[in-house]
């Protein structure tokens, strides 16, 4: 219990809109724990996951988290992300499951040779489905927000998945008041987006006020990058094949969203504190998902991925 109190803020000074969002997320999490047999929290290491985990600790205080965290590892995450993940689990004393699609690894699927689309399908979507089936989880928390992307805007908070984890956007349950329909049959599952109504700005503001630790990659620092088609890709290890004319350069960069490093575009920035990140956001001209190469594969690509069972 004590381990969970280390980051306890000294004062309670949240603005009302954040208090309301916080309470709403806590209420959703408690409903899941009360109604499902075996929930899990999908932990992607990013800023939204950091907030989601913080909210969960609050929701069940003084009890320990009544569910494990699970990270679906594509083996291509930034090294700093993996270090942060392990440190966080240790600091909070929570159970962490790491799942890798070994079949995909054996087949040599990777973001560079296989392309982002196949890599995402095999190492993220298939891996997630594998992991949920393997452990028999009947509900999985995700940190997705409605403001991220158009097809997310219509997603339910309790997103029902048929057997096989398929999402049918035309067959979603109406969701009224705070009365969530948690009933499922054998083999069916629920994805629960407890932070549906948060915006990117809310997330950063909350991180700042609650002093929540996040991966250092969000803050600007000189890092080795190459420029490809207008996108800055960080050379995180020697697996990234360089073109003959390419030479990694040190640039002061940071990331707005984190994923597989060859698929995450960096931005040049001087923001080294959350205050400066938020200030930069105020004048930003592109959305956060723009840095994600996997969303632009094809038209309506997020919706397509979601139908197949992507988060």
């Amino acid at each position, binding site marked *: 219990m004590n381990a969970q109190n280390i980051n306890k*803020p000294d004062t309670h000074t949240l*603005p009302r809109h954040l*208090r309301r969002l916080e309470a709403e997320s*806590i209420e959703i999490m*408690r409903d899941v724990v009360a109604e499902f047999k075996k929930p899990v929290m999908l932990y992607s290491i990013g800023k939204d996951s950091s907030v989601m985990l913080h909210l969960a600790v609050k929701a069940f205080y003084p009890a320990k988290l009544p569910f494990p965290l699970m990270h679906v590892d594509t083996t291509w995450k930034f090294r700093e992300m993996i270090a942060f993940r392990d440190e966080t689990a240790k600091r909070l004393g929570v159970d962490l499951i790491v799942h890798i699609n070994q079949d995909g690894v054996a087949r040599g699927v990777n973001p560079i040779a296989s392309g982002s689309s196949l890599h995402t399908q095999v190492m993220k979507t298939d891996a997630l489905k594998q992991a949920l089936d393997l452990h028999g989880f009947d509900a999985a928390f995700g940190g997705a927000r409605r403001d991220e992307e158009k*097809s997310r805007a219509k997603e339910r908070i309790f997103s029902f998945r048929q057997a096989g984890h398929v999402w049918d956007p035309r067959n979603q349950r*109406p969701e009224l*008041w705070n*009365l969530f329909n948690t009933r499922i049959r054998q083999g069916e599952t629920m994805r629960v987006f407890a932070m549906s*109504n948060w915006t990117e700005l809310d997330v950063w503001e909350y991180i700042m006020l609650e002093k929540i630790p996040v991966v250092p990659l969000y803050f600007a620092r000189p890092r080795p990058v190459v420029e490809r088609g207008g996108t800055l890709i960080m050379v995180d290890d020697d697996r990234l094949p360089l073109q003959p004319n390419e030479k990694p350069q040190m640039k002061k960069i940071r990331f707005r969203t984190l994923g597989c490093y060859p698929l995450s575009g960096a931005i040049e920035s001087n923001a080294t504190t959350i205050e400066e990140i938020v200030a930069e956001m105020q004048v930003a001209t592109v959305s956060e998902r723009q840095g994600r190469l996997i969303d632009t594969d094809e038209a309506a690509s997020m919706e397509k991925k979601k139908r197949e069972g992507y988060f």
Partner: protein
Amino acid sequence: MDTDAIKGLGTAEKDQLRFITCGSVDDGKSTLIGRLLHDSKMIYEDQMQALARDSVKHGTTGNDIDFALLVDGLEAEREQGITIDVAYRFFNTPRRSFMVADTPGHEQYTRNMATGASNAQLAVILIDARKGVLVQTKRHSFICSLLGIRHVVVAVNKIDLVDYRKEVFDRIVGDYVAFASTLGFTSIVPIPMSARYGDNIINRSGNTDWYHGPCLMDYLESIDIESEMQGLPFRFPVQWVNRPNLDFRGYAGTVASGHIAVGDEIVVAASGRNSRVKRIATYDGDLAQAEAGDAVTITLADEIDIGRGDILARPTERPEVADQFAAHLIWMDQEAMVPGRSYAFRIGTQSIATGSVTHIKHKIDVNTREHLAATTLGLNEIGFCNVATALPVSFDAYEVNRRTGSFIMIDRYTNRTVGAGLITFPLRRATNIAWQPLSVGKAERAELKHQKPCILWFTGLSGAGKSTIANIVDQKLFAMSRHTMLLDGDNVRHGLNRDLGFTEADRVENIRRVGEVAKLIMDAGLIAICSFISPYRAERDMVRGLVEEGEFIEVFVDTPIEECVRRDPKGLYSKAKSGKIKNFTGIDAPYEAPTGPEIHLKTIAQQPAQLADDVVKALIERGVIAAI
């Protein structure tokens, strides 16, 4: 930390407004939302570029940017040019953060609008200045009013297309206020605007210099959504019992309304047990007081039995506790609601496994608000109904408290959310008819008869052989000196159920009555043999639910429809096929075969006597009767 230096970040006073926009297909609703997002700088360059691309491909505005495309999310609806579901949008100003529920104006309107309105504090109702107040406007306003929205902005849109004329605006406002006077809105604020060109959205427009009210954004930023929930009696629906160790037993939940302080007396609504608040625990430290909206964990001075679904209240201000109440019901499923059929309910944090609508007092025409007679409730229909639940529930009237007065209904088989309810008042009948305790019970009676009473329920198509087999079983049991009673589908329709026909609603009631009679027979210690087509799984399971586990024995008399048609012992199939009989099971009404019957009889190439023997054997195996 100097947070004030950061532009856009809120002060401690920054709050959130959740609102809904309502309008018909061409009123410019999506355009308005797109405009709000764009003008409050919530749209990034990459999104604008995607929008410009999409505008050329799907847009309806020529070379202009089509803001509607910003908010029409799913692939299918972009192609069809309609919004098929509720979408949520967000934008921020330094004073407030906004969440907008965007709901479609076409045929699914009632279901989607009700969903969007359920969490909204304000509604922006769009009216096309060229068309004025339409039937749709009235429908949207009524649904907003029913769902408890008290603040309305009447957005008279496309004012540019009527040359910004004041008299057009004045006439529409006059019409609106006249009809909305009975809807119980606290405030109605009309604003002339053009979503397409931005008049009176973010800034006051020079084109309407005759208008002296606020522009839309100013109004949304400043309207005082006084915290209505704070002033109400304290309600705390318990979500989860937090018991990490023997020293801590806390009740986790969100304060639905009112406030509570450490030391205050509370009562558990359903059980009437009292205690006092010992601690209000949160991760950020204990609180002296909690108010509506706070997610906390409460511990009490006394160890009393409390679980998920209980409501804590002050002893002087208790919620209603009843198992029958009147409610408005919004039906949201393709399959109609039939009174008597059982559904699962969720009321606050209370889950009730079974309950049903006992009576539809009337349904309401959403366009005219006229009351109409109804026997069932179809998709998107709204009815005023009596509801009965298997267990008493704690609640308030929806009009007073949206958090404790609402419920949803769930299909027990598909688990779809099929209905949304708004409780009006409790019905006292249940409390006035108490159970009379009986000294001689089922067990004693059964003991005397040397048998285990049960309901032996034969189901199957007409002509399947149910009555024939049931009759032989009855004879065999009688010969074994067992005490039985046979209820036959045709026979009860001559007396007990002679007022019922063959519609879905009447079939449900038919089985409900038979189930209750069978239960009485069983209580007398008898084996109740019932032979009924009973085509719906829901009703058979309703009877199963009336008695204890193992007492309901379902016998599926499984004869293919072709064989039943061939046999046609009563000539009914030929009548049904020629249209002389309506709603005939297997012809123009469905038969839902049992998925796991206790006894499954396949009749093809079998003799009824043999099948009856099989049933008797199964009863011996189940210990219902002893072997002779």
